[in-house]
């Protein structure tokens, strides 16, 4: 978890405030956010909540694996690790030690799109946290010995999350096949041979490219006032000079013109199936209708896919779907865990039939209302803690372009009609637009021979 890559693949994180049939309840969850853009371009969002004497602080940098190049894939994520390995004032190992000794903890995650740093601390540690953040944003050091030991850590992370994890392995293959031009094709953690070969020069270049204050958004939620945060920022963060942001990612993935398929053979107890469909980026108007569609198809034991694959046909243990927040058109991924010895193609067939059913006739009013209720509950789950609120505010600000869209989400979900759901099903969930990835257990194949 600590300082790792995190593919935020769950519906929950995609952040969805929701419609609400009970207006009063929604209003109770609207919270004032104070905002200021510092002179160096960093935007700061503050939400006061004095219910516990703690603070959650997030810094979102708009840099991720989409800003990398072949040969140095995974560099954003590796760099994220290095952000904990020493700067000018707080040397190697000191950041974590001083933070814990003052009651704080931290983590970070890297995705295809962003690198996010998180601090959770008691109010009393606030000046220290700003001192630490300012130190590492401007004076990160690159100790060659730390680079080597951290290389081992990241290699171990990759072994755990990809090489020894069938789901991670198959997902990596899926992205690499579904994208042929755009940088979403390589893994956030990086190819192993790239992990082994990064240089200190690569790291320095990455820092210079991605870590301008103007390329970041800070979100602070908890036992604070906006004024005290803005004052701390003026003192510690504002003097840090800005520079050019990373060059824009200009590569556009060309439309997929036909189904792509891939197979992974390896020793395994069970097969696995992933299907990816190209869908628009988070700030696209179809975001909401696509989420409603996925909710109806995949969420809960009453969902269409669960009822069909798990309950009725009994060919799968589980079926789910996810979309990450993204700047560029991305993938909606369906994961089905077939039962032992079930051919993944059997699951595929059932999934495709259910998708066709949504295209042929509209969903029911009851399903639409259920999906909206599920989104509402998810919204409460996201905003009921200071940590969840910091993440949600930042995610809306960064991926939807404005944190205020968080409060429009209810309206946007309410506006989704049955016809919208049918339209997005037809637009994005067709055969030519998909990549199907299967993992087949070698032992089964040997047994068949």
């Amino acid at each position: 978890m600590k300082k790792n890559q995190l593919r935020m693949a769950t519906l929950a994180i995609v952040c969805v405030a929701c419609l609400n049939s009970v207006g009063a309840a929604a209003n109770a969850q609207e919270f004032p956010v104070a905002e200021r853009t510092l002179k160096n371009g960093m935007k700061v969002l503050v939400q006061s909540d004095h219910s516990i004497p703690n603070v959650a602080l997030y810094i979102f940098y708009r840099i991720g694996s989409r800003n990398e190049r072949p040969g140095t894939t995974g560099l954003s994520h590796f760099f994220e690790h290095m952000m904990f390995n020493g700067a000018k004032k707080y040397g190697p190992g000191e950041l974590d030690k001083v933070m814990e000794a003052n009651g704080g903890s931290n983590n970070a995650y890297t995705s295809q799109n962003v690198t996010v740093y998180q601090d959770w601390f008691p109010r009393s540690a606030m000046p220290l946290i700003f001192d630490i953040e300012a130190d590492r944003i401007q004076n990160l050091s690159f100790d060659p010995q730390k680079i080597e030991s951290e290389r081992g850590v990241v290699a171990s992370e990759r072994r755990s999350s990809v090489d020894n994890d069938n789901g991670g392995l198959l997902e990596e293959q899926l992205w690499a096949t579904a994208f042929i031009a755009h940088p979403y094709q390589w893994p956030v953690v990086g190819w192993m041979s790239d992990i082994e070969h990064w240089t200190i020069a690569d790291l320095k270049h990455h820092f210079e490219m991605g870590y301008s204050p103007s390329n970041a958004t800070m979100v602070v939620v908890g036992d604070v006032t906006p004024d005290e945060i803005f004052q701390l920022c003026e003192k510690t963060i504002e003097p840090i000079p800005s520079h050019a942001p990373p060059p824009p990612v200009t590569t556009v993935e060309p439309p997929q013109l036909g189904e792509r398929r891939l197979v992974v053979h390896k020793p395994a107890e069970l097969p696995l199936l992933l299907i990816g469909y190209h869908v628009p980026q988070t700030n696209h108007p179809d975001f909401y209708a696509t989420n409603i569609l996925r909710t109806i198809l995949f969420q809960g034991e009453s969902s269409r896919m669960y009822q069909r694959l798990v309950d009725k046909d009994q060919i799968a243990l589980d079926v789910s779907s996810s979309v990450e927040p993204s700047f560029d058109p991305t993938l909606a991924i369906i994961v089905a865990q077939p039962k032992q010895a079930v051919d993944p193609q059997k699951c595929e067939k059932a999934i495709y039939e259910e998708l066709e059913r949504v295209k042929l006739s509209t969903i029911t009013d009851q399903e639409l209302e259920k999906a909206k209720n599920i989104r509402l509950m998810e919204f409460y789950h996201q905003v009921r803690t200071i940590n969840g609120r910091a993440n949600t505010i930042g995610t809306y600000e960064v991926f939807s372009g404005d944190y205020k869209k968080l409060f429009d989400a209810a309206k946007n979900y309410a506006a989704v009609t049955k016809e919208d759901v049918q339209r997005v099903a037809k637009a994005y969930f067709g055969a030519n637009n998909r990549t199907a990835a299967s993992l087949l257990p070698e032992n089964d194949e040997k047994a068949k021979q």
Partner: protein
Amino acid sequence: MSMSKKYNFFLIAIILIFPAALSAQSIHIPPHEKVAFKNGLTVLLLEKHGVPVVNFIAMVKTGSAADPPGQEGLASITAQLLRKGTQKRTAQQFAADADFTGGSIETDASADFSTVSGEFLNKDLARGLDLFSDALMRPIFPQAEADKLLAQSLDGVRAAKDEARSVLGTYYNAYLFNGHGYGRTADGDEISLTKIHRDAIVKFYEAYYVPGNIILSVAGDFQAADMKKKLEEVFGQWSSKPVTPVKIPVLPPVKGRKLLLIDKPDATQTYFAIGNVATAAGDPDRVAIRLVNTVFGGSFTSLLNESLRVESGLTYGAMSAFDPRKTPGPFGIYSYTKNESTVQAIDMALQVLQKLHKQGITAEELASAKSYIKGQFSPSIETSKQLGQIIVINEFYGLDDREINDLEARLDAVTPAIAQQVIQKHFPTDNLVFTLIGKSSEISAAVQKFADKQDARVISEPGFWPAPAQK
């Protein structure tokens, strides 16, 4: 897919059982009320307003430690089937009704207890309470649903074995407790799940799902007086009968050293657990144990993580955890490393453990752990769901609000001398149980040096430990 497992993997039990310190003197658990219904049901009510949600937890004081040997998974299967058909609803109707509200009804079984949890918006309270009580009081366990669930669970075990890290704890506990109730695999195994039949499920339900064996915790946005009335209407008439509690004997720590190597031929990384039987919930030393463990392996700057990750880069993470239960539960050191550095990493973990015994912890380390636990505490009692869990677990283990309200003072009272006593008493030294999942052909010879007694299995062999044939 989410790739983050490092901290939340093993620590959940600890967070629940050692509700930690306070970040400010003024923080207390909100007032709550305990009511005893005539039929023996214990009800806990905690009001927390703000988010319009109500959380229910029915804790049945019997868990997987009560599974009959050879029928591991019985408590879990029984719990899961509660929502798969009731006197009022088919499984499909139950799912439809629960999902429609956006709320949830979940079930779980761990070693000491089984739980049914419900979460609903307060506008859906009536429907939510009806669903929750329907699952708890009126399940009918349809044969077809039992068959379906057992078949799925069996494949679920196989799927888990495809990922070493997800079954390390299961193998470790099974090997450590070696036939004792705390070694039972809560989810069952490939053999035991074929031996569970409907009549055993019904018998388990009838024996243990009775009001006198249940603590019901309700936390969230409601008025207590009003809620009490509603609960009385719903649960007041539930008929009572005596329960014979399951005795869980105290297992003394294992003497000497033994090592189980699980062969996973495609592994490029070895996952390992090292430890012994340790402490029970409510151990008088629990606060000091938590403090010492924070220093040893319970935080990012812990001695273990510092050695194995930060300084040497051998692993993405190394940690240690106590899992206190009704009677002594496991303590374990957990980490992983590439095949070639398996021995080096285990040696290093053992050195850190020896160093803890020889040198103790410094005053500075102790002070840091105190700050850390206090500073991170408040977010663990932030939501009504968390609060509902804490009060029900305290009640189950015979603990009370002082676990939270006095914890800061209790932490402050721990001196380096007390810490040293706790290390000698509760952290194992020479008596150690090792469990490794990895590629045998590359590591088996080298890891023999760690223990005199060696055991080996292949991950694809059914069961965990003991091997089903030995039962």
